[in-house]
């Protein structure tokens, strides 16, 4: 219980800081960064629920991010639902898609699970590209997002979008934290460590695996919704494999063993990308080199590196 309060306090403090920051100094660049970070960090943390938390290595998690973006944007454009209703409906739809995909994929062993999830993502991507009338094809969804008013707050303005994203980021991370710290989260770690032993403890493996797959998909879709709001539409890049690759890098860079690792990794990655794109046209080259330096040099995520190793005199909370 006291961990819950302690972490709740941290979350609240972070939220207050984020919401208060624009009052102290006005920086559209900062707000822009946080908006982009919230989308990526939610996505990366949801991916780590699978990779680090359950040992389920999904290469196709970007499917849900892209789905979230497109579904939300299309709902806003083609229906008269309010923003909040569209958001909730998108999450529900994402859960359904995740359920379907999960039922198909869960029973597969590691590398095949990774492949099929990737294949399904690329299938989704190719549908987006071909179904031009619905999605705008490779140009992305045009037309913007109308009716961005929630309870008299117009998130058409960047500062309001910033606050909206900040709240969802903190709330989303806190919810995911609750999952990993619950008995359910512990069961997932058991499955990650030794699936056979977990089965022999009487746990029907497919249920927790399917459940976390769906939950991870929902949070990824939430990230996609924020991305869609940021770009006022949706782009096929959101569902393309290089984006999943970026998220995987963000997770590894920040640390798969630490809950906030993906957040840290996302922040570092976004900052680095911003610097690279300003310095040179060939930012792919630079990013590739950075990844190599990380993979061959650092080898562990930043937060994992800084973290006190487990084995100290208290229950290692993650």
């Amino acid at each position, binding site marked *: 219980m006291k961990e819950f309060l302690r972490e709740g306090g941290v979350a609240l403090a972070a939220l207050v800081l984020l919401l208060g920051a624009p009052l102290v100094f006005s920086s559209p660049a900062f707000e822009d960064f946080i908006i982009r970070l919230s989308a990526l960090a939610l996505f990366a943390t949801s991916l780590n629920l699978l*990779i680090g938390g359950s040992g389920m*290595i999904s*290469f196709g998690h970007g499917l849900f991010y892209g789905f979230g973006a497109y579904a939300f944007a299309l709902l806003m454009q083609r229906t008269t639902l309010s923003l909040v209703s569209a958001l909730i409906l998108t999450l529900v739809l994402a859960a359904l898609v995740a359920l379907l995909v999960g039922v*198909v994929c869960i029973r*597969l*062993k*590691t*590398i*095949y699970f*990774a*492949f*099929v999830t990737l*294949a*399904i993502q*690329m*299938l989704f991507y*190719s*549908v987006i590209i*071909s179904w031009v009338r619905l999605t705008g094809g490779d140009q992305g969804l045009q037309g913007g997002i109308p009716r961005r008013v929630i309870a008299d707050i117009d998130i058409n303005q960047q500062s309001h979008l910033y606050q909206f994203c900040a709240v969802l980021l903190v709330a989303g991370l806190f919810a995911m934290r609750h999952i990993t710290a619950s008995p359910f989260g512990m069961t997932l770690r058991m499955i990650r460590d030794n699936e056979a032993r977990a089965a022999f403890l009487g746990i029907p493996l497919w249920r927790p695996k399917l459940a976390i797959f769906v939950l991870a998909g929902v949070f990824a879709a939430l990230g996609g919704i924020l991305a869609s709001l940021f770009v006022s539409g949706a782009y096929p890049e959101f569902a393309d*494999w290089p984006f999943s*690759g970026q998220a*995987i*890098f963000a997770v*590894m860079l920040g640390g798969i063993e630490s809950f906030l690792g993906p957040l840290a990794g996302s922040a570092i990655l976004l900052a680095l990308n911003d610097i690279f794109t300003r310095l040179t046209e*060939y*930012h*792919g*080259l630079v*990013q*590739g*080199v950075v*990844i*190599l330096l*990380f*993979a*061959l040099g650092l*080898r562990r995520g930043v937060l994992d590196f800084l973290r006190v190793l487990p084995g100290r005199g208290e229950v290692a909370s993650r």
Partner: protein
Amino acid sequence: MDLEALVACFASPACVVTQASSGLIVGLLLFLVAAGLTLIFGVLKIVNFAHGTFYMLGAYIAYSVFQATNSYGLAVLAAAAAMAIFGVAFERFLIARVYGGNVLMQLLICYAVVLIFDDLVKLVWGADFHAMGMPEAFQRAPIFIAGGVVPPFYAGLIVLSLCLAALLGLGLGFTRMGKIITAAAYNPQMVAALGINTTALFALVFGLGGGLAGLAGALAAPVRSLSPGMGFSILIESFIITVIGGMGSIAGALLTAIGFGLLRGFGTIGFPLFTDELIYAAMIVVLLIRPSGLFGREIV
């Protein structure tokens, strides 16, 4: 969906020949790439996400060598050799460091290489599309079989690829080196325990895989346009081929690749809009029914 046109095509030998030949070159080029991929995975258990880069570099090197020397044969050899060496270097300097580690680290390294070389290619050759053009030797009248049009280059490519496939299959099955490679795919520790230099073996396999992909790139150069992103789509497709055919199975890769090519070849007539989706769906179905692929071994 234009089923009438498809049926009409099947009824006409000319159409069948034309579509089949173009489908076959798609399939066989894919086979060459997929063969390397499946070998690397079968023996090293590494999923080589950078494989498309070997293909791309093979194409560009062939292009430049051809521009410089006007000899296509030389261009092809240069591309294959260069990519074989590159494959060995890639394995020795990068992959060797992450054996047995987290598969995500391996993935990241491959991804990094893709990023780096996509940009390097842009730097050296420019981001625009390049066309190599058909080498003079093949600039002849098309061959007519049963009324269907088969460009001589296609015929050459088909024959060459099938010969390579046969060589590969026979080589793996009947030469000492081939048997060692096959054994290493089953049980690397045992092979090492038998005193065989697995380090050299792994490098060799990567070199072979790289060389095949580079060769495929060089062979594709006259009939495809070159661009920095060309590696990725061939990567995804060859992955699907290897997964359906079975990781570690050359025969599986060949049959699946040919099937894929023919599906494309005839699909463009019958159902142009969703041939890609069909392939993905096929892969998903195969993986559900027979996870190790049609001809693959159970991955332990």
